[in-house]
């Protein structure tokens, strides 16, 4: 398998001189295509910053970031927007669905920015919703859906542009145990379909469902191939 994500000596530093905060320092990480991994670490460990850099939402201060063979570390905002639109799907803890749009229109939104013609948009959005098991909820507004259903709409939105990478930020943080299992099952299924899945989580139970854990502490990667079974309360705190 070839590498989809290669972080080389990545640093992200906020402020300057004596107020300097090193959110990330000398991070080296490779994620291959088809990988299914979780990013963990105590709060303040830099995992969210790493996630933003990986998701092309933020630029590193130093280092080289190869995404799908392209050096994206210093691209401008609009170029990054195009990469996010075509190659990356996002799933957030708070779903971030637009309340005035139907499930179908929410899912179709990335294709609107991708310039897909309307007829094809509707068809692909319906297919994506079917894939997450919401074929009968196309016209519902988010307020008419349960939390688990809303997150599944968000997943459908994330995969509708057939991304290489599915990036999930605490995707089960707002869900109960049953719906968490449902959502994790969808991630597993999508991963088997060939999509690389990276998720930030602080729940060991969720992390155990992924193939490996990348452990962050103090802005650095401590373990890159931690067995999910090794996660204990102690490692989580420490």
């Amino acid at each position, binding site marked *: 398998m070839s590498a989809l994500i290669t972080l080389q000596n990545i640093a992200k530093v906020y402020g300057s001189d004596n107020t300097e905060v090193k959110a990330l320092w000398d991070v080296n990480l490779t994620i291959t295509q088809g990988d299914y991994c979780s990013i963990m670490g105590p709060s303040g460990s830099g995992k969210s910053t790493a996630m*933003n850099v990986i*998701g092309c*939402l*933020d630029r590193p201060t130093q280092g080289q970031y190869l995404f799908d063979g392209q050096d994206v570390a210093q691209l401008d*905002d*609009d170029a990054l*927007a*195009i990469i*996010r*639109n*075509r190659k990356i799907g*996002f799933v*957030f803890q*708070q779903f*971030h669905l*637009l*309340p*005035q*749009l139907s499930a179908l229109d929410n899912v179709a*939104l*990335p294709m*609107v*920015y*991708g*310039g897909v013609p309307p007829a094809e948009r509707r068809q692909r959005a319906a297919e994506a919703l079917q894939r997450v098991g919401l074929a009968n909820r196309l016209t519902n507004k988010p307020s008419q859906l349960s939390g688990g259903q809303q997150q599944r709409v968000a997943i459908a*939105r994330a995969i509708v*542009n057939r991304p290489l990478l599915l990036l999930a930020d605490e995707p089960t943080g707002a869900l109960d145990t049953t719906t968490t299992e449902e959502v994790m099952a969808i991630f597993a299924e999508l991963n088997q379909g060939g999509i690389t899945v990276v998720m930030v989580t602080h729940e060991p139970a969720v992390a155990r469902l992924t193939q490996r854990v990348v452990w962050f502490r103090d802005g650095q990667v401590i373990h890159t191939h931690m067995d999910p079974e090794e996660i204990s309360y102690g490692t989580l705190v420490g």
Partner: protein
Amino acid sequence: MDFGESFQMAVKTLAASKLRSGLTMLGIIIGNASVISMVGLGEGGRLYINQQLQSLGPNILFIVPGNRETRRLGGLETSRNLVLADAEAIAQQVPSVVDVAAENTTPGLITFLNRNANASVIGTNPAFITVRNFTTDQGRFLGDLDMQRNSAVAVLGNALAERLFEDQVALGQSIRVNNVTFEVVGVLAVQGSNLGVNYDDAVIIPITTQASRLVGRTSPFGIEVSFISATARDSESLQTAEFQVTNLLRLRHGIVDPAEDDFFIQNQDTLLSIADTITGALTLMLAAIASISLLVGGIGIMNIMLVSVRERTQEIGLRKAIGASQQDILLQFLIEAVILSAAGGVIGTLVGVSGISLLSLLTPFEATASGAAIVLAVGVSGSIGLFFGVIPARQAAKLDPIVALRSI
């Protein structure tokens, strides 16, 4: 994302909060309605005055005492140097002039039996009725014999006749004008007010009678007049007439230097241009005042859009995360602002046009909503949206998606 997509999205967003969109538009609606109706009102006033001036006839000349300098002093100090003999001389000696009327207006108390009325007493000569293009409703107008004999005869304005006599026949009745008895020989048809003089509420008597019995001689040169009106043979000879009258009067008044002229001549064109200048300035002033409300409406839109950007920070962050460029976001908010202001402009125009129609029903002004005013108002309100929408839209476009997504 193309323009059509952005437009649809903006319409959807605005439709989702109808009350807020409506209230935001209200400022522009009021602004636009007032601009349209104020400009319409000004335009109506201009038409009204122009109509009055045009009803004077195109060939008329007004010869007014005083020069431009002394007239500026205005009121009581206006020099009165025109006399009846001037008018007669013009009638006899200026070939391009057909008819000449001299008018002298004084206030008077008119009495019939136990009824009193205050009215203008206008002394004039028989040519008045042809020069001013008036007609009589009953009886006759003043004749040459009345002038020669200083007859105590009077022609009443229509409204005054109605006030004094109500249902009775006015002709042949005796009335008293400042305690001098006059016989009513005619009643004018309704004329309306004209250049500030209400001929419907006036008594018209021979100017000679007026001088000998009511006011006496007030000038060493003869019977003094307020102004002289004359009609030229046709519109081509208007300039000739003006030139000849000027020369004749200078000769009669012994004036060598044109700067010392003690009279000046106005024709319909000069009156029209003076009226146009005044009404144009008035219209502009009304429009300027109304524009302030349009401006306030624009600021209202900016205000609400700024609030909207703040409220929709997460939406903006999400849109950016899934691939919206800065331009997409900028366009989205800009289009929302322009839709609000342009729609407000259209509604405001409808309100303004109906307001004008109402106004022209209730007043003599035939107020009209000019096409130019409508195009201008809608265009201006659209640009107001564009102008005041830029700041909020730029703010939205510049938002950092990470910060925007994390904000709650």
